[in-house]
Structures are given as structure tokens and as C-alpha cells.
């Protein structure tokens, strides 16, 4: 148990009254998600390894009953939890968020613009990144050039579903993209509809954790595409995912969530 683990265990069980602690730790030479109860040794806590703990938590929820789980939470994790809580998929009362500030390197790798959790328990807050250079380049390209870029990227996709499986806000057990309804192509790669539909489903919930991009074996810059769509949501509705109180503009009426240009034809 390294110092960090000791610190986390203290926060979780002594200070915040949790029943379990979920964290990334190294045990027996392997680094992976670990869940411990009070008194158990989690191994050496690791925060330098990117991993979607929120995803693990979501999968454990059906088995947790009323137990309180403390989870090591980056800013994106916190926002992901807010999106899930909004939908009744996780229960705020059962979760204790231990705020982890990402390092400068981590922030740069994610091109992250919102990197400090609301409460910092571990780590030193770093400066956010101004923007995603690839996203900016793509936005200023002409349509044909941009299309050529993305079609080249999409062609690499082999429908491994790493992006959906590891995404913290992707909550369907059976992903509709596994069916042929909207993506009737035989074999791989799936047509562009796969990525367009995924982008739409995530439009009101993506917290830019970057897990999709990290999981992609074909190195498709999925996080960049997410950021471009999130920027559109900000432009259209002034909406950013991760806000516990704000409902998705895609589901509410124009009175609740007006369009910037008042919902006329487009």
C-alpha cells in the first residue's frame, strides 16, 4: 500500500464514510481497477494510468444495494456521473467522489478544457488546454478535405466496440449499432452512419474523457470528433454535458431549452 493508497483509504473510510473504495491500483505486478472494503489493502494506488472507473462502477451498481462507494474521480468522471445521475442510472447518495486533479501531461493528452474537479482531494490543479488543434484544423478545412479526412479514418474502423464499451456515458446494454438496422453493410468497416449515430447519441452527454480514442485499436481521433460536436451543442443551446441540473435540450420543449435562433426551419 503506497502513500497515495493510504491517503485514499483514509479519505474514503475515515473521512467520508464509504463502504467501498474503487481505484486503479497495482497488485501482484498488474495495474487494474480494484475495489476494497475498509481494512483491505488495495495495493499501490496509481493515478498515472488512464482508465474509466465510472464504467466499472456502472456495471457494479446492480450488485451494490445501498452501499456507498468512494470512487477516484477526475473532472470528466465527475461530469459523467452527473449525466448518469440525471437519468437515474446511478444514485448520487450512494457515491462518494474523491476528486483527482489531472497532471499537465494528462490534460494535454486529452486536450482538456475542463480539468479540475469541483473538489480536489488528490493532485495539483493544472491549467486547461486552450483547444484541440486537430479540431480547429478540421473546422477550417473545406467540406471535401474534411470529408476525405474522416472517411479515411472511418475506413479503419473494425467495429470492435471498444469506444462504446469503455465510454462512461454509453449506458445501453445492447448497442443498436450492433444491429443492421442503420448500418446494413456486410462485414467491416461499418459505413459512416456508425460514427454519425454514435456522435448523435453522445451529443448531450459526452464529457470528453478521451477513453474512446484511447481504446480505439485503429487510432481514429474519436475525441476530436466528440469535441467538434460538443462545440456545436454549445453553439446551438449553450449546453455543456456534465451539468447535474440541466436536462438535455434534445428532449425538452423550446420553452425549456430554446435554440439560439428560435427553432425555425434550417
Amino acid at each position, binding site marked *: 500500500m503506497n502513500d497515495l493508497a493510504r491517503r485514499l483509504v483514509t479519505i474514503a473510510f475515515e473521512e467520508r464514510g464509504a463502504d467501498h473504495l474503487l481505484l486503479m491500483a497495482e497488485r501482484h505486478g498488474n495495474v487494474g481497477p480494484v475495489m476494497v472494503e475498509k481494512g483491505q489493502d488495495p495495493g499501490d494506488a496509481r493515478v498515472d494510468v488512464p482508465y474509466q472507473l465510472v464504467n466499472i462502477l456502472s456495471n457494479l451498481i446492480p450488485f451494490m444495494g445501498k452501499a456507498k462507494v468512494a470512487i477516484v474521480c477526475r473532472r470528466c468522471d465527475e461530469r459523467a456521473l452527473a449525466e448518469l445521475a440525471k437519468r437515474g442510472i446511478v444514485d448520487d447518495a450512494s457515491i462518494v467522489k474523491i476528486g483527482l486533479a489531472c497532471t499537465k501531461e494528462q490534460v494535454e493528452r486529452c486536450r482538456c478544457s475542463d480539468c479540475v474537479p469541483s473538489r480536489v482531494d488528490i493532485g495539483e490543479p493544472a491549467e486547461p488546454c486552450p483547444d484541440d488543434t486537430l479540431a480547429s484544423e478540421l473546422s477550417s478545412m473545406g467540406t471535401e478535405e474534411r470529408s476525405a479526412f474522416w472517411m479515411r479514418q472511418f475506413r479503419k474502423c473494425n467495429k470492435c466496440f471498444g469506444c462504446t464499451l469503455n465510454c462512461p456515458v454509453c*449506458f*445501453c446494454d445492447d448497442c443498436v449499432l450492433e444491429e443492421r*438496422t442503420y448500418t446494413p453493410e456486410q462485414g467491416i468497416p461499418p459505413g459512416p452512419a456508425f460514427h454519425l449515430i454514435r456522435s448523435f447519441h453522445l451529443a448531450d452527454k459526452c464529457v470528453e474523457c478521451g477513453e474512446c480514442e484511447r481504446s480505439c485499436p485503429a487510432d481514429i481521433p474519436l475525441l476530436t470528433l466528440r469535441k467538434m460536436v460538443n462545440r456545436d451543442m454549445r453553439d446551438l443551446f449553450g449546453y455543456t454535458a456534465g451539468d447535474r441540473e440541466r436536462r438535455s435540450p*434534445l428532449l425538452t420543449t423550446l420553452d425549456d431549452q430554446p435554440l439560439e435562433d428560435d427553432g425555425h426551419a434550417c
Partner: protein
Amino acid sequence: MARVGVFICHCGHNIASTVNVEEVVEFAKGLPGVAYAGHNLYSCSEEGLGSIKRSIAENRLDRVVVAACTPRTHEPLFRRACEQAGINKYLFEFVNIREHCSWIHTKEPREATEKAKKLVAMGVAKAALLEPQTEGESAVLPAAVVIGGGVSGLAAAASLVDQGIETHLVEASDRLGGLLAEVTTIGPEGTDARETVRGIVTRLEASPKAHIHLRSRVAEVKGFVGNFEVTVRGCDGDLKVPAGAIVVATGTKELVPTGEYGFGQRPEVVTQLELERRLARGERPRRVVFINCVGSRQPGREYCSRVCCNVTLKNALALAKASPDSRIHVIHRDIMSSGTAAERLYKEASESGVKFLRYGLERVPEVVAGRDGVEVLVYDETLEETVHLGADLVVLAVPMVPPGDSEATAKLLKVPRDKFGFFLEAHVKLRPVEFATDGVFICGSARWPVSARECIWQGMAAAAKASIPIKEGKVVIQAITAEVDPDKCAACGNCVLACPYEAIEVVERDGRRAAKVNEAQCKGCGTCVAACHNDAVSQKGFTSGQLSAMVDALVKAALEVPR
């Protein structure tokens, strides 16, 4: 494996003169799932329907596609024919190749024919995936609620109790009669307004089936056609009234002028209703100027309020006759006195000394201080001169407008309003006294300014319509409602937020949370369907599989041919 029958209609020469029907039939024969393709001169005729039914039997068809006019008229007819031939009526698909094809591409017969083929391919693709459906039934509570105790509400309530239906009449003020209770006579015949109201009220009060709630409002409406729960809030608390139908008769109020012609500053300037009150008190001002169309028939409120001209005429006539030296003027922008009685009234008013002057919106009259009383300056369009009229009273004929709480009422009942705030009926001609929302009906000026007589007719009509589900005891629920596959549902609540009718909710079943549709509340709009990410909720008759198959069929027919 589906056996689809395709029937292309000539519709006389409406379709056949542009679309090559035989070519479309040949094309249809080659479509996947098609076991038979034929054509008819008039599919909707006895002969056409008979031929379809025979083909169904002879070819053991289990799905039917008719390519003809528009489903909005003849879908029920063909559905019935399918049923008669032993096929579930929801295994039928209508393809529009007339309004959407032959009639709009008359100069391009080749292209129209190709388009018809594609539309048929799309229809067949959907039909092959249709599922049989059973229409549900919902029992109807044998009671009605009428909201509003004005003359239209009274007429509706009286009609309902005449039919033996328990009726609750809810009126916000402390007396019945609405606007009529404040006027003297009803034009153009001059019937006594209070007598009219009293007549209907007496009938109502005599019936044990009538329950009148004064000083009461409808605070909440839950439920759906046949099964409403209406919370009536009176001085002594809330009463929950179960009802099968609701009639909206909330009426209108007079527009309050915002300072036009000195209203509010000069005591001599009043509205028509105020004049009625004075007339009721026996007052007969000698010099009166009526200004018509104050606040109506102009930008922002373009409508004509129907009754004001007749009211002005009857009041002007009464005042003119009251004294030999009365001086009555009517300043107008057209006199809308339709029908013989009203036209006679106009003539009589004119012959009794009422003077009519026409003004235009570009130069409206002005009311200024006079030697005694006020002076009305009006630029008469006919004389092309400004005329000065001395007046003891200036009466503004203002339009009827929706009452301040019409928005709240609309939200309560989930019914739409037009741009002026009046309620919107289901269909101007075919369903004039009902809302699109089943079980809720509309009559009187709440829909559109109408005369007292029209209010009564509409009240009776609404009551007649409202009594139908109550007398039948049940309503049929169209099988185009949403349904949830609980195994796919992630209970994310998207559908719940999206539904305009609160007809879907997340419930716990067998230890699992999933969405559930209230079949009777669901209107079959499909908003929830588009909100669902993984097709856990789908709409019967419009599933994503069916609509996607239509897209695939179009792609195949249009793009996978050598160009």
C-alpha cells in the same frame, strides 16, 4: 415469409394518364416478398374492393399494398376490406401515387412512372415487416364535465342531462350566463338575454343529473378519453370528478382598450359592455358615437369579432328610438350584418336616424374635449372631410378576446391554441366541435367569436359528440401506440422527458427498471421513439425496422441501377 399482394390503382385516368400502371405492376412482381401484383380501375369501388378480396384468397396473400390516392381518405376502407378477406387490418400499407406523384408530375410521365415504382418498392418493404395488431378498448366513465357556465356551456350541459348523462358544470364566477348575463338584448332580433339564460338554467336545475359548481375552477385534469379525473376547486375545497368527456366552454372577454380614443382618461369613453350595463339601468344618453372595429381587423388582431356590428346596430337603434332629438352616429370600417334579420336591422337603424360614417385605418377618429361632453373628429372617407361630432358617450365596439387564463386552461387540458389564443379544433370542417385530443370538446366563443345563437348550436353539437363515447361505454385505441422491449431498455428516462402526454414512465418490474407505456394515454406520435438510443421503445406500424427497410428499398431502386 410474407406474401405481399400489390394493387396499383388507375383511379380512372387520374393516375393512369401519367403513370404507366402496367409497368409498375410488372416492376412490383419482381420485388422481394411479392406473391401477386395486379391493377384496378377504381380500387375503392365495389368492384375494385371485390377484386382485391378475391386476389387475397386466390393467392393466399397475408399483406396488402394498395398504390392509389392518399391514406388520409381511404385507408379505413381498405383496412376493412382486408379484415373482410381475413387479413388483420394492420397488415395493410397505402402508397400514394396520385397526390404525391401522378398529379404533380403531369408533364414528366416517364419520371413519374419511375418514381411510382420506387414508392411501391418502399411500400412493399414496409408491408413485408408489418405485424398484426389488436386494437385495445378502454371503458368510458358515464359522466361529463362542462367547463364554463356561459350560454354555450349551459346549452351543452342541458343537452347532456337531457340524454341522462351526469354532468358537472364548473363556473368560475358566482352566477351563470357568462357575457349574456351582462347584456340587455341579443341582436338582431332583440330577444331578452336574461330570459334566454334563465330558460336554459331552469331546465338544468330541474334535472337531478346536473351538478352546478359556482365559484369553482378546474384545478387539474388527469387521465385520457373515457377516464378523466377532473379536480374541481371550489370555496369549500377540492372535488375529484371522474368523467368520460370534457366540454370546454370557457368563452371570451371583451378586449380592454389601452387608451385608444381616450379610454381610461375620459369618462365619456366606454366599451360596448359598459353601454349594455347603462342601458339595463335605464340610461338613454342622447348623443352617442359608436366607433366600430376598435382593436380588431388590424395588424396584430386581424380577425372580425362577428357580433359587434349587430350589437352596435341594435343598441344604436334602441338609443335612436328612445328620444326624438337623439343623435346617434356609427363610425365604422364596414358593417358586417350578415343574414336577413341583421340586414333589416341595419336598414331600420338607418331609417330611424342613425348616421353611418366610414373611416379608414390610415386616419382613425380622434376624441377631444367638447363644449359639453366630448367631440369626435372623424375623417369621413366618403365625404373626404373631417366631421366633428358632439357626444355625451363614445362607445367603443371592441372584439372578443380569449380570457387571461386561456393559456393555463390549454396547458391543463393539453389542447392547442391559435395565434390569437383561441382554442384550435381538430378539423375546421370535419371535426369542428372537438379537439384533436380525444374526449375533449369545444364550443362557443372559446373557439372563435360567435353570436349567442351560434353558442347554443355549438353547445348542443359538442354535447352530441361528447355523448358518443359515453353512450357507447367504450373507446377503441388505435394500434399505433408505442411499446417497450424491457430487455433492451436502459431506463435512461429519455422517453419520459420527450413524451408530450406523460404517457410513458419508468417503473420497476421483476426487480428491473424499464419504461412502460400507458396504452390509453399514448397518442402514437413516436416522439419517445426518436429519443430512444437503442430502439427499446418502438411505435407499432412505424417501427425503425420498417422505416429503415423503406430507406433501403429506395436506395436499391434508385441507386443500384446503372445510371
